[in-house]
């Protein structure tokens, strides 16, 4: 089933159903209006999905972060947001809570990447993380960064796009909410996956994308076979 999505600008009237107003909208005198430049999504909630904008974390998001500073008992983490996050030594498991200042860098050092869950965002925008996994340098894999607004497109409806990517590129692919994507596989496969992901992000707003991507990937595997 093909559906047409509507592009809206701030202030556009969307609906009278004020009780269903969701993210990206505001209500004034019983009417729902668009709060940002984006695409209207009307399911149970009426939402406007922004086409651009910076990533601001919410509780529960899983993100890929990069350690930028050690400030006992926290690591300060860059999460591709205007706001920095912090990871407390007690939120890492594996005995990390016993670390002291000197030994923190042996557990996680500046420039290391981590996968973490956002456990708290308070009113002053203090963001607390809990570690899920760390990726030490040299453990293989590649990190690709796309605008966080394109993440849903790379995942696809019901995960269809990412499923296809994993299969056809033969890679492990993990997409974090903040637009950072971890890819693991053979060099050539990772190159292909990176290229395709960047292409999807560039053309996220166009139609027929899934088919185009599928064809593109097929043409690569055909080349492989012919060798």
């Amino acid at each position, binding site marked *: *089933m*093909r*559906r*047409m*999505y509507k*592009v809206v*600008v*701030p*202030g*556009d009237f969307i609906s009278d159903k004020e009780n269903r107003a969701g993210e*990206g909208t*505001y209500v*004034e005198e019983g009417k729902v*209006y668009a*709060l*940002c*430049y*984006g*695409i209207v999504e009307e399911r149970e909630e009426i939402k406007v999905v*922004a*086409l*651009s*904008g*910076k990533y*601001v974390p919410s509780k529960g998001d899983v993100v890929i972060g990069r350690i930028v500073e050690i400030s006992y008992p926290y690591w300060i983490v860059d999460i591709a947001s*205007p*706001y920095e996050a912090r990871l407390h030594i007690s939120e890492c498991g594996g005995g990390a809570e016993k670390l002291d200042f000197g030994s923190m860098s042996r557990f996680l050092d500046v420039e290391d990447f981590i996968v973490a869950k956002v456990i708290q965002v308070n*009113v*002053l*925008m203090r963001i607390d993380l809990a570690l899920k996994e760390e990726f030490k340098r040299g453990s293989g894999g590649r990190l690709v960064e796309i605008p966080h*607004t394109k993440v849903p497109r790379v995942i*696809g*409806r*019901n995960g*269809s*796009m990412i499923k296809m990517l994993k299969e056809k590129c033969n890679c492990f692919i993990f997409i974090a909410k903040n637009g950072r994507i971890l890819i693991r596989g053979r060099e050539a496969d990772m190159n292909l996956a990176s290229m395709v992901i960047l292409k999807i992000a560039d053309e996220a*707003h*166009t*139609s*027929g994308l*899934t088919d185009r991507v599928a064809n593109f990937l097929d043409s690569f595997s055909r080349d492989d076979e012919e060798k």
Partner: protein
Amino acid sequence: MNEGKGEEVELIKDGKRLDGRGFEEFRPLKIEVGVLKRADGSCYLELGDNKVIAAVYGPREMHPRHAQDAKMAVVKYRYNMAPFSVDDRKRPGPDRRSVEISKVSREALDPVIIKEYYPKMAIEVYVEMLQSDAGTRTAGINAASVALADAGIPMTDLVSSIAVGKIGGEVVLDLNAVEDNYGEADMPIAMIARTNTITALQMDGRMTKDEFERGLKLAMGACQQIYALQRAALIERYSKSKEGEE
């Protein structure tokens, strides 16, 4: 306003303005969205012979730190004219006129921005006049509005802007440089089209109360049309229908 009117210029001949426009016509408006790679949002706009480019950076960390607001973002606006944008080269750097225009423009856009979404951050708007032919601040506000939307900044509305003036005793829309120089009054406004709320208003020169009221109505009507053009430019940018999956 020209102080020493050594030579009077006839600004209205046979009921038409020197560039052939009617009294209620604004100059041709061209809007392009997302023209800069590095900025978070951008817009290139032409209003007659005015050429302006607006860029938005943000939200991003606010400096200086002591000026941060713990509860909301701070909006900054810098209007600047390129040295080659005017007949007599303008020395680089802010002058008093640019400082005032920056303040008035920022106050025109601030009311629609939901600053509470980004505590402690700065939302920075940079407007550069590349070529100037009067009405530059209105062109700047129109471009800035579109650039803010392009950057994904949450806003209740777009803001639209135009000037009215008085030339040869007549109230007319959107003065060009000659009309501004030899005319009797110039009144730029900015407005939220959806609610007819005015967020900027300045008047320079001399007008009767009646002329002012007529001019205001004329400008407000033009802002509605400009809003439609801003909106169209943004929608057209993603005009290929985004069709659903499966």
